[in-house]
């Protein structure tokens, strides 16, 4: 099984350890992983700001890079969702369609394609699980508190099998953290307040870490935690799944 590794731009630049963990998990589980070297960004920051018409360059570059693989796996719910819903290519329209069917978020891939029901890892800490919105409501990585449907969660399915871990959920199980891409800049007051409140909910559970499938949410919360001089740290789920 040939897997193309799709590393979001901000993970590439600021959280390379998440990319490394993702790569290692996939290889540990029998995947032949290729990393297209010229990938850049999925285009979501522009698209969600109303400038989808400017993401053609990113779209073409993405389509060019991700050929000849069976699956494309990404440690980000929102970037995966964006490619799945919005990737187009004028130069190679069929390839764009193929890619949209091939792209998976990491935990989704582990559970739905590799059919993992547990993962060998050790992480003896209290971990607050943050349900990132695009992964949850967009990719259906888990059930949603608003809907009257049976409960399930692909990320938590794996997390709960890790040795020593205590997974804790905040009272408002799936409220948004407030990152929202450029929302974090253009509606800064609301964004920061939402992040602050989210952290407070996790802190009520005396967590050591906050984790989730999206580093963007975690980057936003980490920024606030550091400003608060909090001892709570953020960690991407890939790093926990790959811990020892």
């Amino acid at each position, binding site marked *: 099984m040939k897997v193309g590794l799709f*590393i979001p*731009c901000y*993970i*590439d*630049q*600021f*959280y*390379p350890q*998440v*990319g*490394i963990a993702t790569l290692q998990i996939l290889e540990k589980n029998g995947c032949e992983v290729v*990393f297209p*070297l*010229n*990938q*850049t*960004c999925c*285009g979501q*920051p*522009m698209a*969600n*700001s*109303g*400038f989808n*018409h*400017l993401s*053609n*360059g*990113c779209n*073409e*570059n993405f389509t060019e890079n991700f050929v000849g693989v069976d699956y494309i796996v990404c440690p980000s719910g929102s970037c995966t969702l964006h490619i799945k819903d919005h990737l187009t290519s004028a130069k190679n329209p069929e390839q764009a369609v193929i890619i949209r069917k091939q792209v998976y978020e990491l935990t989704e891939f582990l559970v739905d394609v590799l059919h993992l029901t547990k993962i060998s890892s050790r992480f003896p800490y209290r971990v607050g699980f943050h349900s990132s*919105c*695009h992964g949850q*409501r*967009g990719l259906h990585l888990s059930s*949603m508190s*608003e809907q*009257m449907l049976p409960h399930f969660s692909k990320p938590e399915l794996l997390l709960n099998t890790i040795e020593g871990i205590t997974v804790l959920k905040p009272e408002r199980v*799936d*409220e*948004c953290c*407030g*990152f*929202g*891409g450029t*929302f*974090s800049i*253009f*509606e*800064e*007051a*609301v964004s920061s307040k*939402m*992040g602050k*409140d989210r952290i407070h909910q996790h802190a009520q559970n005396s967590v050591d870490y906050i984790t989730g499938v999206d580093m963007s949410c975690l980057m*936003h919360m*980490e*920024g606030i935690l*550091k*400003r608060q001089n909090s001892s709570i740290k953020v960690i991407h789920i890939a790093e926990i799944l790959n811990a020892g």
Partner: protein
Amino acid sequence: MNTTAQKHATNAATYIADEQRTNWHDETLWFVRHKRDLAATKVPEWEALRNTASNIKEHTLSNLDLYLAEFEKNALQNGIIVHWAPDAAAHNQIVHSIIKEAGIKQIVKSKSMLTEECHLNEYLIQNGIEVVDTDLGERIVQFRKEIPSHIVLPAIHLKKEDVSDTFHQHLGTEKDNNDPQYLTSAARVHLRNKFIESSLAITGVNFAIAETGGFVVCTNEGNADMGTHSANIHIACMGIEKIIPQQKHLGVFTRLLARSATGQAITTYTSHFHRPQKNKAIHVVIVDNGRSTQLGRKDFRNSLKCIRCGACSNTCPVFRRSGGHSYHIAVAGPIGSILAPNIDMKRYADLPFASSLCGSCSNVCPVKIDIHDQLWKWRQELMKQGYSNWYKKLMMQSMAFVLSKPKLYRFTGKTARIFLRTVPFLFQSKSLNPWYKNREFPAAPKQSFTEWYKQNKK
């Protein structure tokens, strides 16, 4: 609250500065969302009900002209007088002319967001008619010269101390008596007199039924009924999208509306009007005011399915923390943000951006409007039409340029990290750098993932 600033972000920042009040508003509305969840849990067929409601509304919109004609025919047969208003101005003129012709100087009005949208109160007051809003929440905001901050809970932004002060000023209640029971009783007495005095009552319409030529008004307080049955003339104002095909469809909507809005199984009163009582008159004013334009917008027409339950506002983490007035429009919150740009793109260009696109709104919507998808699509439409500001446009163009060129992207990334590591103070301005106002930057690693990969894996 500065509602003249036409930017949600600015209004929200002002609102949030009072953190204690923001927390209170957030918790209060979260509780309403929670009550909705509890009510929905008790209905095992909840999701099937939503699907059914969505289908009924979508079908209706695809047949709207015929259903409106059927409604009019049956309403006329019932002895209801039917008027048509292409816009807000026509609506206001029609309502005023009915009042004027009857020689009436004071009227009572129960909750109608349509009349808020048309600014009816101001128009009538300018024309010498006294308007008494009889919904308790609306009467409170009317005394305070404010607009409702929520389509279902008009005074949700106010604490009981605020209401006490307002009633002390306008009704002579005891100063600093904040007991809701006491205050409500005072309002009951005051408004009872108004009901008895008024011979004309205006209501909204929750549902109009094509099959029977009648309409339904839902309240908890009984003010719509007290007003209309005391009066000689009843004017019911409805948007064109309030039509449903048949009586049996009311079963679906009456099961969804109150549960979604407040967590009750049904409102206290679900009143069905078909024919006026002896010697009295019922008028219905059917209003377009931009709805038929929205109907023609393929991406946005499903916003017309809305039954005005307010669930989207209650679940919205942005609405809860910025308050309805931050949206500077009568119908605020997520639904307001997809309806407003249709009315005036320039004035309301900020609203679709007052969202993190979390998607919670679409999930609670009883008629399954794809609200968060429409927010995204309005963003595209507005930016294409040029309603952006120059620095945002510049930022986006720069990003698009850099991010589409691999070498330039890698170079820019590496340079940014070097700067962040060596001269971080360049970025650390709380006033110039919005990110830094309340957040630290992520640590800037020496190697990007790509650099690590090239070194270790290739």
